């Protein structure tokens, strides 16, 4: 954890689905403009953690604080209006709107509540490199384009904490490299939490890395440090 001001804190968060503890006593914090990767094997609880952090799922136990203020129990739209905006796992866009319309609408949720106009659509289109596809329907875009579009939609909400759930899933190697570039650039302007399976992508980001296994946080440090951690190796490869 750096010396920068704490933006988001999650403390002792737990979420159970029937008899399964998806996350169990997870605590960590994210600083202003910090980039954090959350990794872990399938079923580690990463997406549930992101659902809790974005207000999509209320935790069964624990606290959530944003800029020192408790946000526990607030609905997802209130999280977004505070600046906690998420990208879903898989591309989740508006299928019957063009890329431009999707971005225009995406900016209105927060803008209507704050009274502050959304960012210029053309700027975000240039950022996500979809200017040439602006009039294409969301349903007609390729999977990779939809991934970029969804990232663009989150940027239209002027996030302070951007939560990205597997932003490179299904992308080409070039697309993955471009996404890494974008995430690194965004991290100077906002805090970014990335959930990712692609270790080459995480290595490229070279940022603080949090490792989850069976709903618990088992390591927290630089990517180089956690990749040498025997508990992390055990979690990914299993005990010999």
């Amino acid at each position, binding site marked *: 954890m750096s010396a920068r001001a704490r933006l988001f804190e999650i403390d002792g968060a737990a979420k159970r689905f029937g008899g399964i503890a998806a996350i169990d006593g997870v605590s960590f914090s994210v600083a202003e403009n910090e980039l954090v990767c959350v990794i872990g094997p399938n079923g580690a609880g990463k997406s549930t953690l992101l659902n809790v952090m974005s207000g*999509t799922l209320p935790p069964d136990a624990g606290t959530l604080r944003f800029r020192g203020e408790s946000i526990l129990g607030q*609905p*997802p*739209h209130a999280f977004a209006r505070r600046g906690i905006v998420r990208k879903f796992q898989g591309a989740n866009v*508006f*299928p019957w709107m063009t890329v431009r319309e999707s971005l*225009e*609408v995406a900016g*209105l949720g927060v803008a209507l509540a704050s009274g502050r106009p959304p960012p210029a659509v053309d700027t975000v289109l240039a950022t996500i490199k979809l200017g040439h596809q602006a009039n294409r329907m969301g349903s007609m875009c390729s999977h990779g384009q939809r991934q970029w579009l969804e990232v663009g939609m989150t940027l239209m909400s002027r996030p302070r904490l951007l939560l990205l759930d597997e932003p490179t899933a299904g992308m080409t190697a070039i697309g993955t490299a471009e996404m890494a570039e974008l995430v690194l650039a965004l991290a100077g302007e906002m805090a970014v939490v990335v959930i990712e399976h692609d270790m080459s992508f995480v290595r490229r980001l070279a940022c603080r890395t949090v490792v989850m296994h069976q709903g618990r946080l088992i390591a927290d440090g630089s990517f180089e440090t956690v990749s040498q951690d025997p508990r992390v190796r055990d979690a990914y490869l299993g005990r010999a």
Partner: protein
Amino acid sequence: MSRLFTACRLLFAQPRLGGREKLGVLVALVTLALLIVTPFAASEYRLAQLRDALLLALLAISLDYLWGRAHTLVLGHALFFGLGAYGMAIATMKLGLSTGAGIVLGIALASALATISGYFLLFAGVRLHFFAVMTMAMSLIANQVAVSWSSVTGGDVGILGIPPIEFTLLGLRYSTAGDLESYYGALAVATMVLAVMWAACRGPYGKILEAVGTNENRARSLGFNTSLHLLLAFALAAALAALAGALFASASGVVAPDLLGVIVSTEVLIWVAIGGRGSLIGPVIATLIVTQASHSISSFSTSLWPLILGALFLLVVFALPDGLASLLRKVPEFLARRRGSAS
């Protein structure tokens, strides 16, 4: 105040007219022109039928706003139409109030019921067919209340003798007692409502409704209070349906429990489906055509019409799933393809 102004500017900004929209506007203007000259060619009886059809078109617009734009199906939309009609009838015939007060009472009853029931349903996460069935249940209950509470509603017979709307504006006296005034009054209200709803929904506000209706999770995570958006749309659609009901009651002079029932709810669904969900002008034209066809065919065989309507509905579902309004897109595409293959 400035925040409200900014919100309205963001919500109702008017984009440039697209090619298909221009075609839609042209169709609307031609329809309006035909309806303006119709009284010169139609009998009084036919004019009264067309006036009723125009008021029912208002009901279709309100359902299209909710189903076509916000993707929220209701199976009991006649509930609000009937409440508007009974509001007008009770205000004028039981309470001795003016027709203006009748319109206000009808709209207040319908929008209050929609707001209260919608709050408990929508904020509890009731959506899709669950919501649709709940509205159908509400409509059935209201129908039963109208039959049973005869001291207020007139029971099975309903309430007769509802007066026409009369007012003076700029020194000119207007009364819907005359066939022509009544017809042009209905045409003016239907045109105004259609124009306002079209202008409101063609820009960002319409896109927000679509976002909320088609991908609520995504919209919610972008800062939209989706339940509130759906509740406002439900209450506004109810108010609009009630306005149609109040005007219909005054025009026809009678209300009965049927106005709240399943048959009217189903008919309006069919008009919207045939016209094309979300197009607004499509359901208006479909209402006019289908109701007039209904009168013409029923005049020589009452049992034939439901069969024809069912067949027409099936035909549209299979051949034109997006309704007649989709022809505005398909015909130019077809012509362009033919021109391309010819050259």
